[in-house]
């Protein structure tokens, strides 16, 4: 294992070195730092050209300049990085990069998580209903998503989800045909996903239509879009729904102890509704506190599960803990929504909560809840753009790997020995279907970090991609090289992590020393 690690490290360093040499030369050929001076007709242009050539050392061979850059970069190993600077403003590259990395991570984390969860879920459902209308529909949708140019979609999203939606929020009047469309659409999709005999489909269609109609009416009658909020009743209803749903997936509804445990957790959530509101009234919220409370919720869930006990108490505890997290999330969302009014009416927002550009409203700082809403308002569109693209590939991957797994002998064995369909799917198929994904996800994240160039540029998020495109446009090499160095290192790390994941998850694969 040590041998393997050492060899991996050696090749990785080599890859980073060689790729930076090649890219340095390529970027040097591609950019022209004198571009603005060449068209300069004022007197003394030649002196200025000479001065800049001297400043950037353009007369010496490119490889010498690379070595110069490398000697600065290699000092990162001893903790004092010198990756050069943007010569027009004098800002060091390290400073530019550190800001950009956090921005990009913020953007990419949410998008990736959403895309993975949605993509895997939809992909697996589609594999379970292979060759059904749902499957064909999903295939078609993913082809369309593959073929969409990001920049085109982003502009449309800006127009319709931000500008038009903000206009709409000023006076929310939903047309009746929109209700009909949403109700019928939801019901059709749910029906196709659940499948089954004609009678069952009809029943599912009816139930889904009624539920979505109820939701639409609730949104309409309570003016949810203007004054959103869940309230204790809705928290209770949703909590019980989650308890049933999660138990059904995790242990099956026939496991009464699990069901009761998660229902207890949901009841606890309702009971804590007002105490938590009081807590927020007296405590200044911050991310550590929120995350800590989330963790506490999981622990409480575990405790409740253990208290219900039974022969397999840890299974019960797992189900209860899994329920506790979304229930706690409901309380958080409810508190967040109650700040919506204040946010929308804020002087800097002026009734336009969905933003089209940049990461924060400049100069906006009004406490944790409003800042969080501000962040979400800015995250929405770029996240949606990134999710649209990644969703297609994740759903295809997970569909393919689920189909592969479903054809295996151990699935047949599991069915033959009389396990319920839920156990076969969740225990045997789902877990194994995730293995190939484990090797794709790290690489995919890196591609997103480096490749969110277009999204960041359109939404003016000053992240890594924006940095790269901007400085390439302005012919400044040092920030570009800083970006490429970070990307190369991340790519190497990602590949390593992917291999490691694979080896850990699949015992058939041995690390060759």
């Amino acid at each position, binding site marked *: 294992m040590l041998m393997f690690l050492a060899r991996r490290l050696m090749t990785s360093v080599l890859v980073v070195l*060689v790729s930076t040499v090649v890219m340095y030369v390529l970027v040097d050929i591609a950019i022209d730092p004198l571009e603005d001076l060449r068209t300069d007709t004022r007197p003394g242009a030649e002196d200025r050209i000479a001065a800049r050539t001297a400043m950037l050392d353009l007369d010496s061979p490119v490889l010498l300049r690379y070595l110069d850059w490398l000697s600065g970069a290699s000092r990162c190993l001893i903790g004092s990085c010198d990756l050069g600077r943007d010569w027009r403003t004098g800002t060091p590259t390290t400073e530019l990069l550190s800001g950009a990395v956090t921005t990009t991570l913020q953007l990419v984390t949410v998008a990736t998580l959403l895309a993975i969860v949605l993509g895997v879920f939809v992909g697996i459902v589609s594999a379970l209903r292979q060759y059904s209308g749902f499957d064909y529909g999903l295939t078609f949708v993913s082809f369309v998503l593959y*073929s969409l140019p990001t920049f085109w979609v982003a*502009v449309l999203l800006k*127009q319709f989800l931000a500008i038009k939606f903000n206009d709409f929020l000023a006076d929310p009047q939903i047309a009746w045909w929109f209700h009909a469309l949403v109700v019928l659409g939801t019901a059709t999709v749910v029906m196709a996903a659940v499948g089954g005999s004609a009678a069952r489909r009809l029943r599912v269609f009816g139930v889904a239509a009624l539920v979505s109609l109820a939701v639409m009416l609730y949104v309409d009658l309570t003016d949810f879009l203007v004054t959103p909020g869940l309230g204790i009743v809705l928290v209770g209803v949703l909590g019980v729904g989650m308890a049933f749903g999660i138990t059904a997936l995790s242990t099956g509804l026939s496991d009464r102890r699990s069901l009761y445990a998660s229902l207890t957790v949901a009841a606890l959530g309702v009971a804590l509704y007002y105490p938590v509101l009081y807590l927020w009234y007296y405590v200044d919220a911050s991310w550590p506190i929120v995350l800590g409370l989330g963790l506490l919720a999981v622990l409480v869930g575990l405790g409740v599960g253990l208290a219900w006990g039974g022969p397999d108490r840890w299974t019960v505890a797992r189900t209860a803990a899994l329920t506790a997290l979304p229930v706690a999330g409901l309380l958080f969302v409810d508190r967040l929504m109650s700040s919506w009014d204040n946010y929308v009416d804020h002087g800097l927002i002026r009734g336009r909560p969905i933003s089209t550009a940049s990461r924060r409203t400049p100069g906006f700082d009004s406490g944790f809840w409003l800042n969080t809403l501000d962040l979400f308002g800015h995250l929405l569109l770029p996240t949606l753009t990134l999710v649209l693209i990644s969703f297609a590939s994740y759903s295809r991957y997970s569909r393919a790997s689920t189909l592969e797994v479903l054809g295996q002998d151990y699935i047949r064995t599991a069915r033959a020995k009389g396990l319920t369909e839920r156990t076969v799917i969740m225990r045997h198929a789902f877990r194994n279907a995730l293995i190939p994904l484990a090797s794709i996800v790290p690489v995919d994240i890196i591609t997103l970090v480096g*490749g969110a160039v*277009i999204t960041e540029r359109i939404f003016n998020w000053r992240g890594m991609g924006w940095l*790269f495109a901007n400085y390439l446009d302005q012919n400044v090499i040092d920030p570009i090289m800083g970006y490429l160095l970070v990307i190369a290192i991340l790519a*190497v790390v990602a590949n390593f992590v992917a291999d490691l994941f694979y080896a850990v998850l699949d015992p058939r694969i041995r690390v060759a020393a």
Partner: protein
Amino acid sequence: MTVETPPSGIPEERSENAIELKDVAGLSQGQIIRRRFLRHRGAMAGLAVIALIALLAITSIGVGPVPGWWKHAPSDQNPLVNPQGTPTMGLPTWLGGDGLAFGDAPFGQDELGRDIFARTMQGTQTSLLVMIVVGSVSALLGMAVGALAGFYRGATDQVLMRLTDLIITFPLIVIGAVLGKMVGAAGPFILAVVLGAVSWTTLARLVRAEFLSLREREFVDAARVAGASDFRIIVKHMIPNAMGVVIVNTTLLMAAAVILEASLSYLGFGIQTGTSLGKMISDYEQAFNTRPWLFWWPGLFVIALALSINFVGDGLRDAFDPRQKKIPSARKMARAAGRMARQDAKATS
């Protein structure tokens, strides 16, 4: 409950896929693939759309010095037909339009009076050119690299695969942007060649994997015993057997190339002289509120091209992959079983 024993006249074994085997009996592998492809509805629709778009783009404004049938050239500045340059194309009245019309500026005009139809057609020509050139260059390179690495293994394999790893280190759009900035001014053809030169990596890996298993097969030994050179074995015996992978992946890569070129041109690192659909979208983005037609048409053509190539690629994959069998719906299965039972009954009576 009694179980009827089958009458003895029925043949004991009915192969599970008897219907399917009957379907392809007596056909060569190539014929089977062609047949499966031709029956793939999505692929056929995609092929038709590409052909139509190509025909429209080439004949309307012509190629090079050859003039087309459309009256305006892409860079001509004409007087505005409608105020603001709104499109003259009208929907039929039953669709809520002002009557079916094509007019002098069907896709509208921009603020300089340039005809958007002609410009979109020119951009489509660029996209088609990029698509074909990137596809051929990367197919050739990918095949060559993959074949050499898989056939010779050892040191050759190591060198070529490390080279592949090196290119994969960076996202394609990043390398593409640097290279595009370098050669974008030299026109779409050079840009496409350069983009093709860095997008062969996936194909090379797949071809290598294919070659690693092909080189152990008997027909390769047979060719070698018969005295064939390495080059002949690779080109005449092994590449035809790896063609499925090459064709499918090149097709999918062509769809990606269309989008890559549009994205690069949008960012300003792509085509700098002439028209590209991505560049049009970038130029006209700000005008979305006042002149939305400037923005819609180029985008729709990019999507139409990429989507139809993706469908063709999907059809090809289904045609080449013997594991991909379309399972008929339960209703069709029941009907087929019923038909067979009736035939059996007729045969025994």
